[in-house]
C-alpha cells in the first residue's frame, strides 16, 4: 500500500510550502488524483488521517478532486473511450493520455496569525 508513502511526500511538500509562515495552521490540503494514477483515493484518505498527527497537517482536512481518464487521438483530437482499443479508428495513431494520471498538490489553505504586512498569494 503505497498511499502511506504518497502521504509522507504530501506532508513534506506542505511543510516545505509553509517555510515562510511557520506559525500558520493548515486547514485544508487540496489534491488532484487521476483515475489512472495508481493511487486509491479511499486509501489515501485513510493514510492521511492516520499519518497527519504530529505533522504540519495535524489539523488539516484532505480534499481530493478525482480526475477522469481522457484518451485522445494526437492527430485529429478524437476522444477515445477508456476500455476501447487505444488507437484512433480514423488515423490509426496510438492514443495519447491527456488526463487521468495526476498526483498533484494543488492548494493549501492556512490560517495565518496576525502578522502585519504579511501578504500571500
Amino acid at each position, binding site marked *: 500500500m503505497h498511499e502511506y*508513502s504518497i502521504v509522507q511526500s504530501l506532508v513534506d511538500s506542505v511543510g516545505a510550502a509553509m517555510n515562510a509562515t511557520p506559525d500558520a495552521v493548515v486547514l485544508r490540503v487540496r489534491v488532484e488524483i487521476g483515475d489512472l494514477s495508481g493511487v486509491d483515493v479511499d486509501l489515501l484518505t485513510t493514510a492521511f488521517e492516520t499519518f497527519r498527527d504530529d505533522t504540519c497537517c495535524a489539523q488539516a482536512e484532505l480534499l481530493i478532486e478525482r480526475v477522469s481518464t481522457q484518451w485522445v487521438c494526437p492527430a485529429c483530437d478524437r476522444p477515445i473511450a477508456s*476500455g476501447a482499443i*487505444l488507437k484512433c479508428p480514423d488515423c490509426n495513431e496510438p492514443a495519447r493520455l491527456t488526463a487521468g494520471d495526476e*498526483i498533484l498538490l494543488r*492548494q493549501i*489553505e*492556512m*490560517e495565518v*496569525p496576525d502578522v502585519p504586512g504579511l501578504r500571500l*498569494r
Partner: protein
Amino acid sequence: MCQDCGCGDPEVVPVKVQQKILARNDRTAAHNREHFLGDGILAINLMGSPGAGKTAVLEATGCALPNPKKVAAIAGDLATENDANRLIAAGIRSKAITTGQACHLDAELVHRSLHHFDVDGVELLFIENVGNLVCPAVYDLGQALNVVALSITEGEDKPLKYPTMFMKADLVLLTKADLLPHLPFVNVDAITDALARVMPTPRVISVSARTGFGIEAWIRWLSAERTKALEKFEVYA
C-alpha cells in the same frame, strides 16, 4: 490580520502550489537517469506479479548473452536476497535491495544502492522491482524503459485489472510460454486484446526461461532500445 475590517481575526489564506506530490522522487529519478545514460547504461525497470518469472527471465538472459559482464541487476525484495543470489549464480553482477515493509522501489532506494555497486563496463542494468502489479507503477526510478513480465497462467484480463501498470509498459514479456500446450483455456489473442485496451503502443514478446524460447528476440529488442536511448540522450545532452 483580517484585511477587510481589521477585526484582528486570523486570516484564512489559500496558497496555490500546483506541484507533483512525488516531485522529490522524480528529481532523484532524473538524477539516476542522467547517470545511467551518461555512463552508456540502459536501465530497465522490470515489474510484474510475484511469481511472474522476472528473475527466471533474467537468469535466462544472463545465460544467453555472450558477455554477461555487460549486464548487472538490482533486485528488490521485501525480505530476502534470494533473487540477487540466483542472478549472481547465473553470472550476473547483482545486488539486493531489501525493502522491509515497502511494496515498491523508489528512486532514492535505487540511488543509494548504486553508491555501493560497481557498474563499470555495464551496458544493461535491470532493476527487478518488488513483485506487485500496483505500487511499483507509481514511482519513477530513473529507468529508460519499463518492462512488465506477465505469465500466461495469470489470467487473460490482468492488463484490464491493473491498467496503470500496463499503460506505463514499453514492453510486456509474456512469460512461461512453454506451458501454453498444457493450458487449453488460455487464449493468447485475448491477452493481446486486453493489452491493446490499456497500452497505446502494445509490444509483446513471448518468452520461456526454461526452453530459451523468445530470449534472443528479447535481447535484440534490448540492444536496439539501448542504441535508441543513447542516441536520444546525446542529442539532448
